[in-house]
């Protein structure tokens, strides 16, 4: 087991390293291919005439005249060990590890911007993940146990509808009903859980539901088909032949096996959502990673895009790593 974990951990580190190289290279290629001075992507403008000594000085200050490997090392060492950012005039800014650089447009460290967005994204993703997992698996299990029954048809039609409705539809509809018509949630502005848990819950409940709605539908269908398959396995017949009651047969023997593949998909889904819940964040005006990504792309704010990409990649790799470990715990055949 220890060997298995170490092996997976090494793999995860290699993947993250490759991601950092690739993203770094992409953002080197963008200025090159678009014949734009890289300074533009950092400051939002090219303040001096091309070829002027001032521009050369600025290019040198950012380190764009260094060889590629040196630039990469500068970037990587910033993430690993931190650095001090200075323009030579103002007070130098301390940027502790992991340092993703400085956004001159926002006048803020990229790390600080990400740190502000991460709790919002995590609140959204974790809450809705719990909702969709519980909801989807329950509906799928009940449907899978009685295929073709009325309850199965209702569950599956409902999930087809849910999967077809985009968040930019369900979100506003929920807002219309609960905020504007019923007035149950008069103020849905975000508050950190550490400061005001009640307001946090109030602001999160609708985003949770609308995001979970979409995923719950997929999980219901997946659970249903897994459950149908599992319940016809020989070991279910053995469990019944032992004289176990139906509850034990279904939950201990059936659901346990049916849920195993869902663990994998769940981990990847949660990992992928970090940085990609753009629509939900926009509809509910949440300032999470998705919002940060989109606004930085619109403003061509390269340091933020780089930082968010790395964070999202790390999230996915970590999720995958957790899934691998969990899978080895859930399925004893995996461990070597």
């Amino acid at each position, binding site marked *: 087991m220890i060997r298995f974990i170490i092996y997976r951990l090494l793999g995860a580190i290699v993947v993250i390293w490759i991601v950092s190289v690739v993203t770094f290279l992409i953002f080197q290629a963008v200025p090159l291919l678009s014949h734009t001075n890289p300074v533009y992507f950092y400051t939002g403008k090219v303040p001096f005439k091309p070829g002027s000594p001032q521009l050369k000085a600025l290019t040198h200050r950012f380190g764009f005249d260094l060889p590629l490997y040196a630039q990469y090392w500068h970037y990587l060492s910033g993430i690993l060990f931190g650095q001090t950012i200075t323009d030579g005039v103002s007070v130098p800014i301390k940027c502790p590890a992991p340092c993703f650089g400085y956004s001159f447009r926002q006048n803020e460290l990229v790390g600080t911007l990400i740190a502000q967005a991460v709790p919002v994204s995590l609140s959204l993703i974790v809450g809705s993940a719990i909702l969709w997992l519980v909801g989807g698996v329950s509906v799928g299990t009940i449907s899978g146990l009685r295929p073709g029954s009325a309850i199965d048809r209702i569950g599956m039609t409902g999930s087809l509808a849910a999967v077809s409705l985009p968040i930019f539809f369900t979100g506003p509809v929920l807002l219309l009903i609960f905020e504007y018509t019923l007035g149950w949630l008069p103020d849905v502005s975000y508050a950190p859980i550490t400061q005001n848990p009640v307001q946090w819950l109030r602001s999160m409940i609708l985003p949770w539901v609308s995001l979970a709605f979409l995923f719950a539908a997929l999980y219901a269908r997946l659970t249903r088909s897994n459950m149908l398959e599992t319940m016809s396995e*020989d*070991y279910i*017949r*053995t469990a019944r032949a*032992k*004289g176990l009651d139906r509850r034990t047969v279904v939950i201990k023997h059936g659901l346990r096996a049916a849920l195993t593949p869902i663990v994998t998909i769940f981990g990847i889904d949660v990992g992928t959502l970090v940085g990609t819940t753009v629509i939900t964040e926009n509809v509910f005006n949440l300032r999470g990673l998705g919002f940060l990504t989109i606004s930085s792309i619109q403003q061509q704010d390269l340091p933020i895009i780089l930082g968010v990409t790395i964070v999202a990649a790390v999230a996915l790799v970590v999720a995958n790593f957790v899934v691998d470990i969990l899978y080895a715990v859930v399925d*004893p*055949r995996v461990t070597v």
Partner: protein
Amino acid sequence: MTITSPVPSAASTDPGVFLSVEDLRVHFPTDDGLVKSVDGLTFDLRRGEILGIVGESGSGKSVTAQAILGLHKGSKAKISGHIWLDGQDLVPASEDDMRAVRGSEIAMIFQDPLSSLHPFYTIGNQISEAYRVHNKVSGRDARKRTIEMLEKVGIPNAAARYSDYPHQFSGGMRQRAMIAMALICEPKLLIADEPTTALDVTVQAQILELIKELRNELNSAVILITHDLGVVAETCDHVVVMYGGQAVEKGPVADLFDVPEMPYTWGLLSSMPRMDRVRQTRLTPIPGSPPSLIQVPKGCVFNPRCRFSDRVEGNRCFTVHPDLLPTAPGHEVRCHIDPEERRQILLTEIRPNL
């Protein structure tokens, strides 16, 4: 084995009979029509006896076993007839009543021990679970009892292997573990559904020996379902030959091998390799394939494949369904051919080629 009247209505009067199946019918409605998997099966079984049920795939052997265990309850299967277990009819019994019987009174061993064991739980966990359903004992006692059982079925180092998973066991060991699971509550009836089919030949004999030993120890009744006549000859006291969901011949094991009278039984014996005598000819397979259970042949179920249907006058093989009639004490045959002529055919045409 007793001869039962054609229209049975109550439990067998013979007090020694432990399990009495009377006119059992298991029909499955499907989109293509009604599948008559078992159609009017009758047999008796005493404690300490081993009954072999023989037949091709799809002849209704396993469906019968699962009906006895009540595993069709909750499915779409339509079951009629009676299954008397120690005087209690299991056919109308509720799922809850059956649950109390399963594992404790009747236990079952399945064909493929790997797929029949849950891959995610340890062998010990699965066996002690079977014990704890029917006995209110502590986890420690259940564990002790499980290890005892594992030792009894011949698993070396049982205490250490308690926490192994099924995939860490060899095929023969898995089947031993299945047997330990089936016998942990000392059932009075053990149904073994092709227990050796998935196993190595060398392991087969050990498993059969183990079933016999445990039968002797617990004085259980055993139903051994197989398509391997060698296994039957070696293990069973009585045999039911099934074809198309019906019993076509039943009798003591010696009769079945010495004086078989049903053409299907002849076919089975002719297609079986013999170690005890030199064959004059090659093995002869039975021509054709098993009948459709939706459109069962009119008359005798075996008529499309029977070489001897021309020996019956008036084309009766194709029009009249033959009854299962006694031909010798305890020996019953479902065939229109005249008993005298059957014995003659056996002597002159069949036996020389066996």
